[in-house]
């Protein structure tokens, strides 16, 4: 019965979201107070019904109701309960339901926000109406093409279980976090459109900033978590593959970062209003594009997409409708702004410059991601764009970006270049000297890019920390005012430092190891002790014991595993990792080559942890801004 109730709730949600949309339109004659009360109620009803639908699906999972197709495909009686919950969003249908649930939750947070006052009430009503329309489109999509409550008859005795790759704590929470970031961008999008259609001034910026930072936080967390998962679970110790699915999350992140910064300018200086609105539209459009890439099946096979295009075409139509519609509204309502008299070295123009770099980075990634798909669809010629392209071209926007980040921190609103130069030259010198020392004396010279990367990372860290250090003696308010920015920039610097050092100085190769034999990896020695059998709850495993020595002193032992799950045929590699802040030692078990010899994948990765420590610190900065500082200045 649960599945039928779920279906009913989903249809109720469809109706509620449509009501939410219509209540924002002027065709219904209501005074503003009643309109606001009604639209708030319908937003809650919409959210509640989607939540109940999700609960119904959860109930089907927990009771092993394999007559529901989605449950039969993604669950099994011996699947541990936490993974039955994670299986809710483990595949297409359920993850879209989650997408809609999160969208309606963000909508509800907007509806109950205390940040709206009389003159911004119209913004709230119109943006809730727009969010209602977005939700309506996607609920319709679920009901028509990807219904999670579909029954099968005759139903199977047993389910096919969740993909073993997905049976992992980090990946269980990865989709909700990433999706929360994706769909959170719908709120700035809706606010931007609401503003364009009404007062068309800067009032929306302070409001949009709250949700932009929120979704930026979730995106940062989601991407970092995904990369961490890929590192230890996919088996081969890579942490970023420039895979289209990864790119699909990185592009909105880059534009969301630009949006957060642009909104500061719009809020504080009341300029760049149109640019911020455009960024809000692009950011959400890239979220939709990401959903399309991941969910349409176009990546798995362009041909299967072309032959069974129902789902993909529907999402494409939704993208076309929302992005196209938004851009038309933007074009029609774009006011000719009075000529700006910007000083090149003022904070506003430096932020604008960096936002352009962030967007170009997103653009370059988009070319590399979409070009092969388009070419295959048009020409049926199969090509792919290799990681070297991304690794190389990302430097073009990122080198100047990192350079100007530090300059922008020291610039002032409407400021000029002269004072700026005096303020930054000492820190610049410090970064260059420390960078050269690190790259030449401590690590040993590798490439010019590596040296430059280290210098720029240090520059970003130093300039980020400086405004806080300078105010150490002063009042708390002065001290913490710059903390969110400082943490975000230090986090970025640490991430770039980690990426540069790991990719330039890391060692990675495949080799054979016999029992008692050892192999040299950099200054470390890996020695294979034993390989034993072990039985898990729903798998069997071979577990190796590998001791690691440095200068004949044992520094660690790792236990890489090869697992064979009862349900699915392919075996899984669980890496053995010994890590601290300075380096990761990594062993993945290959296969038994006969004669007591196993193949192994061995890695030494210096400063790898910084790649995930950085985002963590960035997130702290964002949380600090949202919860500990005074509310945004110009909301009232």
């Amino acid at each position, binding site marked *: 019965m649960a599945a039928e109730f779920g279906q009913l709730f989903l249809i109720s949600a469809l109706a509620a979201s449509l009501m939410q949309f219509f209540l924002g339109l002027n065709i219904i004659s209501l005074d503003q107070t009643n309109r606001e009360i009604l639209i708030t109620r319908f937003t809650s009803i919409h959210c509640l019904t989607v939540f109940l639908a999700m609960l119904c699906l959860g109930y089907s999972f927990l009771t092993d109701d394999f007559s529901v197709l989605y449950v039969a495909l993604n669950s099994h009686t011996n699947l541990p309960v936490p993974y039955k919950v994670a299986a809710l969003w483990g*595949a297409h249908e359920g993850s879209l339901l989650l997408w809609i649930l999160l969208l309606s939750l963000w909508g509800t947070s907007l509806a109950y926000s205390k940040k709206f006052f009389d003159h911004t009430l119209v913004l709230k009503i119109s943006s809730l109406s727009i969010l209602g329309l977005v939700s309506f489109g996607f609920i319709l999509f679920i009901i028509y093409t990807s219904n999670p409550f579909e029954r099968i008859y005759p139903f199977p005795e047993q389910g096919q279980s969740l993909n073993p790759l997905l049976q992992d704590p980090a990946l269980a929470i990865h989709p909700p976090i990433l999706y929360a970031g994706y769909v959170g961008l719908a709120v700035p999008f809706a606010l931007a459109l609401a503003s364009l259609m009404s007062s068309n001034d800067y009032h929306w910026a302070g409001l949009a900033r709250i949700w932009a930072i929120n979704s930026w936080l979730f995106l940062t967390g989601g991407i970092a978590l995904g990369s961490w998962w890929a590192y230890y679970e996919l088996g081969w110790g890579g942490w970023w*593959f420039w895979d289209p699915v990864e790119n699909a999350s990185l592009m909105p992140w880059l534009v969301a970062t630009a949006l957060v910064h642009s909104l500061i300018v719009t809020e504080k200086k009341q300029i760049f209003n149109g640019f911020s609105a455009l960024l809000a539209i692009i950011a959400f459009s890239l979220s939709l594009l990401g959903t399309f890439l991941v969910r349409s099946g176009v*990546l798995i096979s362009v041909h299967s997409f072309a032959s069974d295009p129902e789902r993909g075409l529907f999402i494409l139509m939704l993208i076309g409708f929302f992005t196209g519609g938004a851009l038309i509204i933007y074009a029609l309502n774009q006011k000719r702004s009075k000529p700006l008299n910007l000083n090149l070295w003022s904070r506003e123009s430096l932020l604008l410059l960096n936002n352009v770099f962030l967007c170009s980075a997103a653009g370059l990634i988009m070319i590399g991601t979409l070009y092969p798909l388009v070419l295959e669809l048009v020409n049926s010629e199969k090509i792919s*764009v290799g990681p070297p*392209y991304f690794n190389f*071209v990302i430097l073009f926007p990122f080198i100047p970006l990192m350079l100007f980040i530090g300059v922008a921190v020291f610039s002032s609103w409407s400021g000029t270049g002269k004072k700026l130069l005096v303020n930054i030259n000492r820190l610049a010198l410090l970064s260059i000297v420390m960078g050269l020392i690190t790259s030449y004396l401590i690590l040993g010279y590798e490439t010019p890019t590596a040296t430059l990367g280290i210098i720029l990372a240090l520059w970003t860290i130093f300039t980020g920390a400086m405004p806080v250090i300078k105010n150490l003696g002063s009042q708390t308010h002065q001290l913490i005012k710059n903390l969110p920015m400082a943490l975000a920039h230090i986090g970025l610097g640490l991430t770039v430092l980690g990426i540069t050092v790991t990719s330039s100085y890391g060692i990675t190769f495949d080799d054979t190891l016999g029992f008692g034999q050892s192999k040299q990896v950099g200054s470390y020695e890996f020695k294979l002790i034993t390989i034993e059998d072990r039985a898990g709850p729903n798998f069997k495993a071979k577990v190796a014991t590998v001791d690691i020595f440095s200068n004949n002193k044992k520094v660690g032992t790792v236990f890489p595993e090869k697992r064979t799950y009862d349900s*699915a045929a*392919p075996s899984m590699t669980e890496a053995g990792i010994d890590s601290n802040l300075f380096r990761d030692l990594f062993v993945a078990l290959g296969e038994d*080559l006969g*004669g007591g010899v196993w193949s192994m994948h061995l890695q030494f990765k210096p400063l790898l942890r910084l790649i995930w420590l950085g985002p963590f610190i960035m997130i702290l900065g964002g949380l600090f801004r949202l919860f500990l500082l005074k509310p945004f200045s110009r909301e009232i």
Partner: protein
Amino acid sequence: MLPRHRRFLGICCVLIIVGLASFLILKSFQDNLLYYLTPSDVIAGKAPEDREFRIGGLVVVGSFYREEGSLTSQFTLTDGAATVNVNYRGILPDLFREGQGIIVRGLFNKSRVFIASEVLAKHDENYMPPEIHALSTPTE
């Protein structure tokens, strides 16, 4: 210098930098395009000589050979019409099987053996794996 001259100089600099960056980006794009061919394409002489490319096909049943304790394996790929001999040193993906569809990246050596630098089993490269039933059905 007049402001007009300065502006002209500034615009020239920006144009040169943007032009140079676009040139390098386009070149990198060209250099890193990996073509995907079938064994028949290879036999028809479509394979590039001087740069890596990818071949996709099924591993011929019975063709897999690896000396005991060695990391180097040999196998044959087919698309039903033509075959290519492949040589690979390294760990094979978990999903590698005879009869299974795989993709190899690499170059031919002088004796026309394909030296693979990477072997991908189907679905192995997909970060977010597709629906389960796609895994269990044989592809291509």
